[in-house]
């Protein structure tokens, strides 16, 4: 190899395992799960047994190890199932476990991480509230220390895997106003006072369950506090870097799949006596799509390599996420356009890609929040 490659033999072997897992355990059923609004819970232990859920986590807590590119290979191959909802559902652990790994005590780590990586328990992240999303410093859910317990009151909104989650890595207010009053608690779903709404009906990500979670005098043992009181905000902000990388990869794969579908369709579908690919206007559209996908993928890989090397990439990952989402917005739009009326039909993958794509520039920090972050760096 004459140039620096991001993926090696191990990554390729892992890709093959995940591809087989997707072909055998997900693809044959995915349309059914999408319509039903959830995938079977058994998928978690199946993925856990194959070691897929543990990618990127230390072996000491039941993880499979591996660098950032192994995680990327995992997300890319899993996205090939065609349902970002399945990926988001299985992937909710990747936003809820990292704070435990970063701030948890030995006891918390060995209690809350291995069952999730095995697929026996489902983990979710609880930040967003009815009145606070991007404005994390303004969260209202209160936790008051009383003896050996925090008494939690409030609610969390739009929680991915929230309907089925057994444990929630949850932002609460233990102190006064502003970001300094925020802490992270692990709240288990069987805690008295913890309840869950019906599954929320969404534009996309149909196969993943999303819910509102309510806390009513919910008694959380004090040993479930992650780190120290008041350290929650910085923990949440750090965790966002993970999530933004994952969403960038999802955006790139959404665009990649839309491109592949469009290339196939343009060769098959005939209009005015020749295949769509026989028209310059279609060919050029496909070329623009392919160019954007290629550029976005290389950009995100580069940023990932720097993150893996321990460099501060807050500005760059925010740019990468916005760029990847801009690309996937354009490419999924054009993919539906190339498919014409059929692209509006549920039987065609591009219809789902178009819907599933919409959340990517909102979740994990909106496009506008990304721009605010970037502006602070470039105008400093």
């Amino acid at each position, binding site marked *: 190899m004459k140039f620096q490659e991001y993926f090696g033999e191990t990554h390729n*072997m892992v890709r093959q395992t995940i591809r087989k897992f997707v072909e055998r355990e997900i693809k044959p059923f995915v349309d059914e799960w999408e319509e039903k609004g959830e995938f079977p819970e058994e998928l978690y232990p199946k993925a856990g047994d194959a*070691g897929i859920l543990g990618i990127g986590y230390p072996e000491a807590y039941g993880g*499979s190890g591996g660098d950032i590119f192994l995680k990327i290979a995992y997300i890319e191959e899993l996205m090939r199932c065609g349902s970002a909802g399945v990926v988001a559902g299985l992937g909710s652990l990747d936003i809820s476990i990292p704070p435990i790994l970063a701030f948890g005590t030995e006891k918390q780590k060995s209690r809350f991480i291995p069952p999730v990586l095995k697929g026996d328990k489902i983990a979710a992240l609880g930040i967003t509230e009815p009145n606070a999303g991007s404005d994390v410093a303004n969260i209202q859910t209160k936790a008051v220390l009383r003896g050996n317990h925090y008494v939690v009151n409030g609610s969390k909104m739009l929680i991915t895997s929230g309907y089925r989650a057994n444990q929630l890595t949850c932002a609460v207010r233990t102190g006064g106003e502003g970001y300094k009053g925020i802490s992270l608690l692990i709240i288990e779903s069987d805690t008295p006072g913890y309840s869950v709404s019906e599954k929320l009906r969404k534009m996309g990500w149909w196969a993943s369950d999303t819910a509102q979670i309510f806390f009513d005098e919910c008694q959380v043992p004090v040993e479930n506090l992650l780190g120290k009181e008041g350290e929650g905000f910085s923990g949440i902000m750090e965790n966002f870097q993970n999530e933004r990388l994952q969403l960038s990869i999802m955006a790139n794969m959404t665009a990649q799949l839309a491109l592949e579908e469009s290339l196939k369709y343009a060769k098959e579908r005939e209009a005015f006596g020749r295949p769509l690919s026989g028209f310059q206007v279609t060919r050029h559209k496909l070329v623009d799509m392919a160019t954007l996908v290629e550029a976005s993928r290389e950009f995100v890989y580069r940023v990932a390599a720097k993150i893996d090397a321990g460099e501060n990439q807050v500005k760059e990952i925010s740019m990468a996420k916005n760029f990847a989402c801009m690309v996937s917005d354009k490419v999924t739009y054009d993919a539906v356009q190339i498919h014409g009326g059929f692209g509006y039909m549920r039987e065609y993958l591009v219809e789902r890609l178009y819907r599933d794509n919409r959340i990517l520039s909102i979740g994990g920090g909106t496009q506008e929040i990304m721009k605010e972050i970037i502006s602070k760096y470039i105008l400093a």
Partner: protein
Amino acid sequence: MNILVCLKQVPDTETQIKVAPDSKSIVTDNIKWVMNPYDEYAVEEGLRLKEKFGGEVTIIGVGPTRVTESIRTALAMGADKGILVDDPALTGSDSLGIAKILAAVIKDLDYNLILCGKQGVDDDYGVVGSNLAELLGIPQISIVLKLEVSEDGSTVKAHREVEGGILVIEAPLPALITAQKGLNEPRYASLPGIMKAKKKPLDVKTISDLGLDAGQVGESGAKIKIMQITPPEERGAGKIVEGETPQEKAANLAKLLHEEAKII
């Protein structure tokens, strides 16, 4: 019970194959290489027998360095060690040449059973297994759907599908079996398995290590030669059968099938 599994690496079955300008080979740029699917059944069967009887599963591959990835995949599934024969002189070997190389590797090993896929899905000759059994002078049962090894490990009973029924064949061990689709459902290489596989032994040998010389294998030793590879003919456009009524359309269809397609 010591089991040897012979493994070939082939282009991923989803690859769009393009014929090279020389018309005798394929374009290998950008090909994704995977373990031959029939060999996956062989590996899986080997692992199941090891789980039942104990012993070791050894994977043997022939080909360039990239083949280590497929051998590692088999190690990640649970096999114990791998041997790769990698030598520039091997280029252009035919099936008999490959069987000679495998026989040279195997003659020094201690084994009870050899498992192969029934054929490589790339060139589809399907004869390496039988050639190898012949060279080793051991019994061979091909295209096997079900395999039973006797409790004392002395014989093997294999089920083969034949027209309208199942043929059950018995042979003393050591023997060679070739695997058919349906023999089992191969496991995935799990992530912990993949990580562990990095530390398992994988020996790389050249043909001189095996006491062979270049004239016996590779292009110079080949008994058969590929003259030409042609892609399948492109499908022509379809035809819409004209007619005002279903009856008329059926009549026109029958006429076309008779006069143009000449199949009725």
